[in-house]
């Protein structure tokens, strides 16, 4: 489905979190979802989103950090904005994500309006 709205990929294993972000961003962006790391990478290569809201701890073979590494290490996807959304709130985790190339770091519980404002500021300005 083609759309003129910027595409935002939401990656989280919790359905309610995906629903929450989708409701929040759905009016301004084209939102697609993935529930694990591997499907997230497939979606990135398939839909070329402008931004990815990425959970860190996910089941499966790839967690959020590995997905981040894959996105930022590929020339085709390294320009995609990646915001980590995680329950891991320690400074070391934040610093680790920043060094890997994350553009933003949101700690659960987060404000949906705050996330939307960040995405809006980076994609619509």
């Amino acid at each position, binding site marked *: 489905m083609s759309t003129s709205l910027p595409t935002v990929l939401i990656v989280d*294993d*919790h*359905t*309610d*979190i995906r*629903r*929450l972000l989708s*409701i*929040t961003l759905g009016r301004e962006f084209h939102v697609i979802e993935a*529930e*694990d790391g591997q499907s997230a990478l497939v979606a990135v290569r398939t839909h070329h989103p402008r931004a990815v809201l990425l959970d860190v*701890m*996910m*089941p*499966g073979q790839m967690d959020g950090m590995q997905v981040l590494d894959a996105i930022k290490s590929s020339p085709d996807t390294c320009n995609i904005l990646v915001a980590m959304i995680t*329950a*891991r*709130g*320690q400074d*070391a985790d934040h610093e680790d994500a920043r060094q890997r190339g994350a553009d933003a770091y949101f*700690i*659960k*519980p*987060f*404000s*949906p*309006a705050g996330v939307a404002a960040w995405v809006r500021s980076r994609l619509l300005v």
Partner: protein
Amino acid sequence: MKRLACNRFSLHFQFTVALAGACVLGALSVVFVIELMQTQALTTEVTPHLTDAMLLTLCVLLCLSVWPAHLVVQHLLAPLIRLGQAASDLETNAQQTAPIPVSTLPELVVLFQAFNALQHCITGLRSAQDDVVAARTQTLAHNETRLNHVLNASNEGFWDWDWSTHQVYVNRRCCQLLGLPESVLSYPSETFIESWSPQDQTGPQAAILACLEPDAPTHRELQTHKPDGTPIWLIVHQSVVERQDDGRASRVIGCISDITDRRLAQQALQDRTTELNTILDLSPDGFVALDSANHVRYVSMAFTRITGLDASLLQTLDEADFWRCLYHNCVSDPQPLSSADQGTVIGAAPQLMDTLCTRTLINLTYPVRRVVEVTRRGSPADAVSQILCFRDVTHEADVARLKTEFLSTAAYELRTPLASIYGFAEILLNPDHNDPTRHEFVEIIHRQSHLMSQLLDELLNLSSIEARIAVDFHPVNTPVQALVENIVSTMNLPPTRSAPVISSPHGELSMHVDVNKARQAILNVLSNAYKYSSEGGEVHIVIDLVDAPSGVAMVSISVTDTGIGMTPGQSSQIFDRFYRANRTSKIPGSGLGMSLVKEIADLHGGNVTVDSVPGKGTRIALLFPCSFVQQADGLPAQPIH
């Protein structure tokens, strides 16, 4: 000179006259006899008379000739006798004597004058010698007095024993220490040995006698008793100054001292050292003491136990070498501990040595992995400048790490439902959403709130199990089947699911459990069986009697479902806190249920076993201690010991 000449003339004159008279008389007598013999006129009768007359005449002549000789000899010998007497007096009389009168004989004048000069000289020398002797005698008396004062002040006993002459000198302190009467001071040679008891083989006297033997030690410490029975320690020092041909001592000088205070102090010190060593050996903490030169002086057994380093390897090493040895033998790849561990972690020995002023942690690799806390404390003692304390905090570090991980995981698990609650509540503040959407959001909030509440309850239960074991644990003998049936009847089964099938092949069993905790464990297992099995699947409960590896009879409550099952990897993690085999499923859960089951089983001395096949189902068996067995054929119940 004139008088001397007159005396010489008188002597010569008298001698000449006497000699001339004797010669004349002798000559006349000889002439008369010759005449008589020539004339032969004498008759035989007359001849004997003549002979007698001649003999008489010869005697008279002889007497007349001896008398002058006697006079001469007497005149010559009198001065010499007087000179000899004076010489004898000079030899025996120490006092100053007057010069003897000079003889009138010219031949003896020089001799007398020389004798007088010699006598004067000898008298002078003797006087000077007497002065020296007097001065030295005074000095000797002074020194002797001083020596006696020193001997008395030294509080030590002395003796000088000449074995060959039995001359013994002892001072008063010596008598006191040897337990001898002070009468030996007056008659030491007679009473010194006699006062000894020959039966005393261990006393100081025996020690003194033992020192007389060849190659005997020069000193000996011994214990004896005072007259009142108080024990006393003495040390005897002896020096053999003279020996007999066979090597035995013939003269010995020695001293004896009371070292009771020193021995008592030594004994107290030894007792204290033994006490401290016992405490240090019993202490789980290892100690290393450094002397004033920063060399290793003491290594406790606990340090060897912690590090595996023998004390003999470390003795006398300086501090830098000590740390190098520790790191070389016990740290294969020095790495800082995780951030979960508090304190400073140093990766190399030199830095550690420099910065070791507060609590420092070392990660030891050999002989086993340990986390060791090192503290340094200065010592005011001269012999020990620093004490290093090594405490094995591996358990504390593990607990701290697990606690941090647990809190981190718990926070993560709580943040996820909280994110939904927070986010959807924020969205609900926007009035743009229609009622169905708002209702959907409220449902999500309600569901996540329930999940969060359930999570908190299980966290609290887990915490209660861990922290309140002694307070909240009341095991009683409980009929197993009745308890299981009660749990099944009260649990909220899914509407479309049938109740579990309960079987008990061993008849009625009783187990020794805390009912509330056992109920919670069985309920958790049952809940999982229904959550992770399909709608038509049955759940079976089998109550059985099994033997544990320890030989104790256990009640087995096994719950079997026909659900999704687990892989071996998933089964191995089922008791980890917050672990969920399939997070992506829609089945709600906290991941704490089976952790709680495991804690409860362990608390009872029981166990939990898992047997699962993916796609076919899972069997969870709870093992609790058995207390009674009701025989299936109706025989009386038998207690289980």
